[in-house]
């Protein structure tokens, strides 16, 4: 199990940041990802593996109405 924005989510093997964003349908272009509090730059999404128990934050910078 991992946490994504404070909510539980099943963990799976070989789960990268990139894959997680796709699975969560987080398509918004302006997001900031932190894994266990550590900022992950966009260019590292494909290579950064998420481990079981990790705490992932995906913050959307959307202004809205």
């Amino acid at each position, binding site marked *: 199990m991992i946490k994504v*924005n*404070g*909510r539980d989510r099943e963990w799976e093997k070989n789960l990268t940041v990139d894959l997680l964003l796709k699975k969560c*349908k*987080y*398509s*918004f*272009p*302006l997001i*900031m990802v932190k894994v266990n509090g550590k*900022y992950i730059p966009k260019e590292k999404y494909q290579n950064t593996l998420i481990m079981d128990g990790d705490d992932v*934050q*995906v*913050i*959307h*910078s*959307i*202004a*809205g*109405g």
Partner: protein
Amino acid sequence: MSKENKDNQKLLTSFEFEPGKVEKGYTDRRLYINLSENKIEEKPIDLEAKETFTGGRGYGIWYLWNAVSSNTKWNDPENEIIFCTGPICGVTQYSGTGKTHVVTLSPETGTVNDNNVGGYLAPFLKFSGWDLLEIQDKAKEDVIIFIDGNKGKVVIEEVPGINSDTYLLIEKLTEKYADDEKDKRNLSIVSSGRGAENTNLGILNVTWYDVRRKKVRIKQAGRGGTGSVFRDKKILAIVTKYSGVNAGSNNAAYPELLKKAGQRLTKEISKLDHIQNGMRETGTVNLLDHMQNYNCLPVHNFKFGSHPDAFKIENKIWHQRMTQNQAGDSCWMGCAMRCAHAVDGFELSTGPLKGEKVLVDGPEYETTAGFGGNCGCFDPDFVLEANFYCDNYGMDTIGVSTTMAFLMECYENNIINKEITEGLELNFGNIKAALELIHQMAEGKGFGKIAGLGIRQIKKILVEKYGADAEFLQDIGMECKGMEFSEYVTKESLAQQGGYGMANKGPQHDENWLIFMDQVNNQIPTFEDKAAAIRYFSLFRTWFSLVGLCKLPWNDIEPEDNKQKYHGMEAAKVPEHLENYCWLFEGVTGKQLTPEELILQSERVHNLQRIFNLKMGFGTREHDIIPYRAVGPVTAEEYESRRELYDQQLQEIVNFDIKDKTTEEKIKTLRDYREEQYQKLCDAVYERRGWSSNGVPTLENIIKLKIDFPEILELVKKYQS
């Protein structure tokens, strides 16, 4: 003007004034017009009002409070329509400083309403010498009010028999009042249209002249029926003329602070807009794709949050349709955001201007989501035609589309039928019927007469005259306090439900927009977190209207490292922009302002507005209740469309065993839970705001805020338990 109209024109009165001197952002005087007495007067701004309510909408609400009694109706003569400026208004060194804020009693809600609108009106008014334009009573025939800020003259002319629709009127008036082509940029006109005369959903259009296109452009004061008040007073137009705007027009105390803030923001916009929100490319409609992808796009009267056809009205389409790189897309001088886009040469297929090729201002996100998604008409040409005619007729695209979506659901549920609609087949997606209904509403004919009343009054008619189920209509009729919801699905964001329900004027997103912070980012998980966000952001956003600012350059652009430097709610405040605002206020007025004092300025006005609601017979907890459609699934169709999500919530959060349960049983349990959550949120927000559990500001809070004027104390005392 045709020759015929010129003959009919009659000078009613004129008034000469000392052209204004703006001192540190203020003129300290207001222009008062009484239309039945043809009286025009200069009145002072009281020092106490200035100290307490800062300016702009703060002044507007205060002077309206003094003008009306608790019995005043929107169409009574004593109701006023007040155009407000604000101390930062008109600053040319910073983006988004040209907003006019309009205050009046609303035909939809019966209480105080406020709108903000772009265009050049407020800066021209202020530089002419007026912090406020306050209009009371009604003229006998249509009038034009002409304010010449350089000559120091106000003229009221009677002009009967002129078509009030905006598109042609503003072109004619621009020709009439400008001395030559160059002078056109010195005009700003307020107009409305026949739709404002025949519905409760009237808007005001405010102009600026687009030098590049050689076209008059418009922005709208849209919510709550302000345009209906304008036309009820028989104002055909207000024309303001002022030349000579420059960086020194506000006589700012410390111009270097304005420059510092302006340069910092302009740099950000130039460097980052194209990789952030693309406001310079399509403006607010960029939101459409994101709302669709995150299930927040209203579809079929807010039943669903997305639709497979949404790609037909997605951002890319508007990028192709809107003419790009237009300097005239700034709705006030110096706005580097220039998000006020337009589609040029659009050929109309219906209505009085059928066959004409017109400029359509917009479409904005709300218009596209409302007509496209909520009415199920995923056709860009339809969105443009509906956008154009609503503006031209002076009708609110949000109010009209949300009302239409409600009627479509009623039609599909046989609550209304072809007999009642006089032949209109109001199914979701029926473009022809939708356009016909817009024209009928504007004309006050056929079924349009009922549709133009807005959802709250329509519900009453359907129950009383046609025996409709009142509870079902309450569930699906997306209005609160009498105003239609703007275009976001809030079922999965409790904070935004509260943001809409507890907004002073009704469910418009300009008080709060917390959907992503809550639903997606999960940054405000507890009631206390949500209450803190609702309190803070409603006050922060109120501040723009006190000083004359546009909200968009606050968070539709942000410093590159904002989310890395700051976290959670702090990041959402965009601290560097907050710092800009403190610099701007100090730079103009000479008074230092901390972020906390900024919130305090707003808190006074926000509480006054809540108490104004109380004065008009609203303003208590029961009026903050929202239709269940905004909270959760009303019908089995809605539940089944997201069954997995709802089933999971019932099991994991509500601890409800869903095995062998019918959809109806699940809907009921979910509803009980969610309605209770909403009530708990109200408790938390009221407490955080210093209000009683009935949603009334406490005496202690009123005294603390220094708004303990005798009439306020007397009123509020009645509600203290």
